[in-house]
């Protein structure tokens, strides 16, 4: 077989600027920057104006309550960027919490073993979603509405009317103990590790580039050799596993499991992700924006609570943020398109369109 001599052109011939805007504009004219700014503003305002917000317990409680939301938001970000959605995360959380509770309390399984089993169960639940969505080709919205009911039903069937409580001492306290003398609970350690892991996966790997491509056009992605089905399958399994991990944490934190453990969490997760600048149509978003989005909801929640507002007010505000952020993400790109960019220039005519760099084998 005769291989044509089409090799990579010499790297020194770069002739285009990499970016059309200066680095400052690129960093600041983004949805992520806006969310981070909003987070800082709300935080500073609350420190000054909400009684007790500057107290030592605020950050601690806030981290404790919102760690599961933040955890579930990580795989959800990747899923929404591919243009799919997972409405079943809160039910998966509930089911895995139920599994943990039943195993530990009723069958005296040790907590680490029960946690591993629960995470395996969560992964399987995620894989079931993934199978139907990626390989059968069903819409994720329909499948996960179904599994939202199904997985919650599994939790209800497992624990029935009981409320399981009484986890063994020691394990029960670990997630909510402080790291050294700081205001931060232990759960933030695995959370931080997962944030970094998902950030790298999304922004600095081939797999992550594939995720964005699938969201922008899954057909083009398929034509470029991205394995669309496998990518989606992996993401749903990750979503199930992380939701299950969060479920174990929630069970230990509350020292009890009930049929409604985690009900409605999916709204907070999706609201956080969309608020963080991820497009519901897929293809756009960044993990740091999502972290800021979830924290913004957490800070608002805690500030409103300290201000004496009921949980329903927080519910209203989260709902409004969700609707508002979807509408905003539909408008912001249009506004940004009006801002100036570099003029279109002709490519340097010096290079002929013939064999790019024939013979100059610069493969490293």
């Amino acid at each position, binding site marked *: *077989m005769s291989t044509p001599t089409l090799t990579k052109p010499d790297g020194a011939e770069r002739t285009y600027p990499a970016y059309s805007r200066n680095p400052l504009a690129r960093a600041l004219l983004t949805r992520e920057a806006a969310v981070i700014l909003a987070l800082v503003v709300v935080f500073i305002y609350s420190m000054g104006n909400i009684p007790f917000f500057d107290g030592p317990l605020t950050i601690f409680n806030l981290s404790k309550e919102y760690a599961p939301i933040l955890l579930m938001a990580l795989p959800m970000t990747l899923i929404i960027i591919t243009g799919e959605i997972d409405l079943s995360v809160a039910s998966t959380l509930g089911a895995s919490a139920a599994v943990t509770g039943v195993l530990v309390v009723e069958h005296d399984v040790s907590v680490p073993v029960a946690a591993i089993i629960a995470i395996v169960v969560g992964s399987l639940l995620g894989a079931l979603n993934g199978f139907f969505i990626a390989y059968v080709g069903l819409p994720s919205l329909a499948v996960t509405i179904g599994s939202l009911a199904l997985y919650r039903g599994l939790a209800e069937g497992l624990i029935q009317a009981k409320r399981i409580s009484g986890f063994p001492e020691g394990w029960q306290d670990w997630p909510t103990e402080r790291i050294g003398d700081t205001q931060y609970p232990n759960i933030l350690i695995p959370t931080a590790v997962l944030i970094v892991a998902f950030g790298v996966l999304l922004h600095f790997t081939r797999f992550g580039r594939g995720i964005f491509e699938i969201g922008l056009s899954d057909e*083009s992605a398929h034509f470029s050799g991205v394995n669309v089905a496998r990518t989606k399958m992996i993401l749903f399994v990750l979503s199930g596993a992380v939701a299950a991990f969060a479920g174990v944490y929630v069970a230990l934190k509350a020292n009890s499991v009930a049929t409604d453990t985690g009900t409605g969490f999916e709204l907070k997760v999706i609201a956080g992700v969309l608020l963080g600048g991820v497009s519901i149509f897929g293809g756009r978003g960044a993990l740091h924006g999502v972290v800021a989005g979830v924290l913004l909801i957490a800070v608002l929640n805690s500030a409103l609570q300290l201000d004496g507002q009921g949980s329903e007010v927080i519910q209203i505000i989260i709902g409004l943020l969700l609707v508002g952020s979807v509408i905003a993400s539909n408008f912001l790109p249009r506004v940004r398109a009006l801002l100036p960019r570099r003029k279109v220039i002709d490519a340097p005519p010096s290079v002929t369109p013939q064999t790019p760099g024939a013979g100059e084998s610069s493969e490293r």
Partner: protein
Amino acid sequence: MSTAAHQAAAQPLTLALRGVAKSFGAVQALKSGTLEVAPGSIHALVGENGAGKSTLVKIVAGVHRRDTGYFELAGEPVDFGSTAESKAAGVAVIYQEPTLFPDLSVAENIFMGRHPLGAGRRIDRTRMFAESEALFARLGVDIDPRRTANGLSIADQQLIEIAKAISLEAKLLVMDEPTAALSGNEVARLFAVARSLRDEGRALVFISHRFDEVFDLCDVVTVMRDGAYVSTHLIAETSESEIVSKMVGREVAELFPKTVAPIGDVVLDVQGLNSTGEFHDISFQVRAGEIVGLAGLVGAGRSEIARAVFGVDKYDAGSVTLGGVPVRQGKPSRAIRAGMAFVPEDRRQQGLVIEGSVAKNVASVIRGRLSRLGLLTAGAENKAAGPWAAKLQVKTSALDMRAATMSGGNQQKVVIAKWLATNPSLLIIDEPTRGIDVGTKAEVHRLLSDLAGQGLAILMISSELPEVLGMADRVLVVCEGRLTAELSRAEATPENVMAAATRSAQRDSEKEPVR
């Protein structure tokens, strides 16, 4: 025929567009469109791909709103903001690509939004089906109006579009390449209907790449080039060569800079490829340094064959071998690793991530090679993409510009750059110059010729006969999913290719259409 064209002077023009322009972002799709159509005439609109014909049609149809220029219908200045407005004003359009509702019946597809009503404003289905059957009878085709549109062939879908447009009884009927997927018999019926509509005093605009059809059917012809009006001629007073030179705007000989390259070993070997409903028993080879043209009517199965070879679609039987190594089906990633590159037909949906940047698109297939320890940075992508974009002279201000903001020709260069970066041994290129300007077209042709000269094997699919005849060393002709001819460069004349492309269609048309 010319009676109609002449008597027109007395009445106002059915359609008058003068100096109409339209831009999409940075791309000016239409610079200065002018088209004047008299009632009772059939007006051909010709021009190469990317000349702005389809944009002009979409302005007339109300899909797009023009930026500037004069637009008048039956003597009244108009400004359509939606397709509903143009429809109400008496414009019917048959688009290049059929747009049907797959879940609904054929008859409902024809009458959606204007179903015949009976007592109490109830939809009168009996009448709807009867009227549909009458329309199909007029067109001489046999489609069950009660079946759903789902699963119909492209030709049948196109016929439904035609039936729908006729049923609108519009004063202006625009047909954007209605015959691309039709057999000879169906074309003849369509033309008979078109003539009878003309004789009723309606105006028709007919867009086609086939000059024989233009000269057979039309009274007047307007030529466009590069988004602008060139000239208008009475068909009786012009010739094919005059039209072609107006369209191209230069000597035809300049196109297709085919250089004969030494032909090497077999690179691609396809044996007995079969896919139910798409194509049957396809076997052929492509050798190093050879350009093989795959010709045929739209919908004949050419693109489907290419997609199966590359692994985008699965097939039922057969084998694909590249450089002596079997390529497993259904996985483009395998084909890419084996050395295949595929520039697909639909640039915006398949070739590019249209909302992605130039750099991400060019680097998209070589990401594995650019990763270090599994990590991939934007810097590495930019570094790899820049030189390839430069080699192909992509016009862009920076590597982070979205492909969507670029012209069709530039987008095609990005797609080709992306595949050349993989260092392939076989390039499959489907409609290499669809929707790109004349200048870039010549560049693409020169590039393909040079690549073949360096020993790349190229399989080229094209609906433009001159392109196939000009570029290919060998022409394979597909008709209704089967290879009907293999012609050497010397044997490949327009007549031979078209005969093979419609072979089975003509055979079928001799017997009564039975389904």
